[in-house]
């Protein structure tokens, strides 16, 4: 018994890494597709998306880098898809330099990912999304909160050109959009500083009363709940699980088969499984560590006496 506890106590970290790696690979290859129930947060967020009316101008801010993409991209997919369904006018922008590129990838896809536009147009045969009319990518702006303050004076002054360098006043999407207050809602996806917490909430929401909701990574979620309780933040997607739930909550009818489906893809469901398995392994390791600690505390002392 002592040998086992001694081995477990001094387990090499490379063994831990190996176990995690094997668990991830096995789960990806043989997923369990554990059931996902739609939580209160995901349901509330869907309600906010459904409150957007046809023609409403809304901002979707991509304030994250590629490192946050696995958690935040599913949120962006769900938000953009539902906004297109609602026929909103979607303005994408970013306070992070990688944001505009990640926004383009979410829309148009990359590699095996077909992108949200293709998926939307396939599920809605009568509709063709048009750049500059249904959506626009305004690109990245440096200056953080000052951008928000200046946007309230004139959006076109700050974003004179879109991400491809074309003057934005040429696009029909700009009709009736002059200042920040003209936007009905902001959906801010944030991977850290320079985003929802320190730009959109204190300036867009507090100073200019533009409704703000958003999404964040699981690790940063605890600092956002206080703003939910004070109702400064209308809705929050607090990590990958809620994002997957929102995708599950967005249903569509396949025009080819007439069958009902949801946006939750098998790839995303698989990642949810991986997250579950890794959490369980971490818990098991903590339990092992504590078992060895208590064993040593009890018998180690007895042996010393």
């Amino acid at each position, binding site marked *: 018994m002592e040998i086992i506890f001694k081995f477990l106590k001094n387990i090499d970290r490379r063994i831990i890494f190996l176990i995690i790696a094997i668990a991830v690979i096995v789960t990806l290859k043989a997923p369990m597709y554990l059931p996902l129930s739609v939580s209160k947060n995901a349901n509330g967020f869907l309600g906010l998306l459904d409150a957007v009316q046809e023609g409403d101008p809304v901002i979707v801010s991509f304030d994250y880098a590629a490192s946050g993409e*696995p958690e935040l991209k599913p949120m962006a997919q769900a938000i953009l898809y539902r906004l297109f369904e609602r026929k909103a006018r979607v303005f994408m922008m970013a306070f992070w330099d990688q944001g505009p590129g990640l926004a383009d990838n979410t829309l148009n896809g990359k590699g095996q990912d077909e992108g949200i536009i293709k998926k939307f147009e396939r599920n809605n045969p009568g509709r063709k999304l048009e750049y500059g009319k249904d959506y626009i990518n305004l690109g990245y702006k440096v200056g953080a909160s000052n951008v928000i303050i200046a946007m309230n*004076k004139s959006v076109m002054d700050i974003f004179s050109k879109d991400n491809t360098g074309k003057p934005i006043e040429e696009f029909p999407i700009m009709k009736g959009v002059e200042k920040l207050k003209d936007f009905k809602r902001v959906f801010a996806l944030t991977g850290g500083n320079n985003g929802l917490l320190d730009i959109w909430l204190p300036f867009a929401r507090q100073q200019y009363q533009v409704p703000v909701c958003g999404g964040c990574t699981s690790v940063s979620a605890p600092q956002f709940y206080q703003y939910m309780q004070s109702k400064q933040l209308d809705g929050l997607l607090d990590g990958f699980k809620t994002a997957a739930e929102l995708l599950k909550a967005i249903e569509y009818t396949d025009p080819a088969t007439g069958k009902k489906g949801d946006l939750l893809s098998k790839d995303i469901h698989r990642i949810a499984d991986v997250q579950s398995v890794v959490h369980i392994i971490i818990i098991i390791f903590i339990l092992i560590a504590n078992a060895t600690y208590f064993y040593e505390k009890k018998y180690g002392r007895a042996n010393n006496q």
Partner: protein
Amino acid sequence: MFLRKTLPMMLCFCCGVFAMFGFFAAEGTKLNIYYENFAKWLMIIATFAMLLGIGNLLRVNTLKILKNHPDKIYCAMLLAGALITAGFGILQGIDKGVCMYIFNYILTPLQKTMFSLLAFFVASAAFRAFRAKSFESTVLLITAFIVMLGRVPIGTSIWPGFASISEWILSTVNMAGSRAITLGAAVGATAAALKIILGIETKYLGGE
């Protein structure tokens, strides 16, 4: 002395007071209009600060290579990466061509890999450090288990209660602590800002 210390302090005081009152000024008032114009100046300054940062990055790394620093290979990699990406971005545009290729197939996978390594390090660190040594650490441990299980699908498959307890912990217990920390930090930041505006704190000028 005047140019190095007094003038920057005067500018800092004027800008600080103006920004403070401008923030609270009612919309449409002259002060508020000036404040919104002021934000545009700050954006221009921020853009130049970014250029300054790039310039400094190039200078520091070039000097390291020239001085045969042990890390010169990394400096060369950094310079090559920065110059190639920026060069193709300027020549071909940032949303297409080689710049986008670098972004999609080099930067994005690298960043995702770095972030994914967290899972391995968290597992190892939790194994080494998470011990129920006292009452407080036992409470922390139990809370961590509940939250970890409540935030993944397997937790709700084991027992649906994990999700609701986890939600309560995050939105009530965690929120109370988080709000206290936020308020404390905000008061501290306000005090620090006031010290700078009033010229009590002058370290930003490079002095003692």
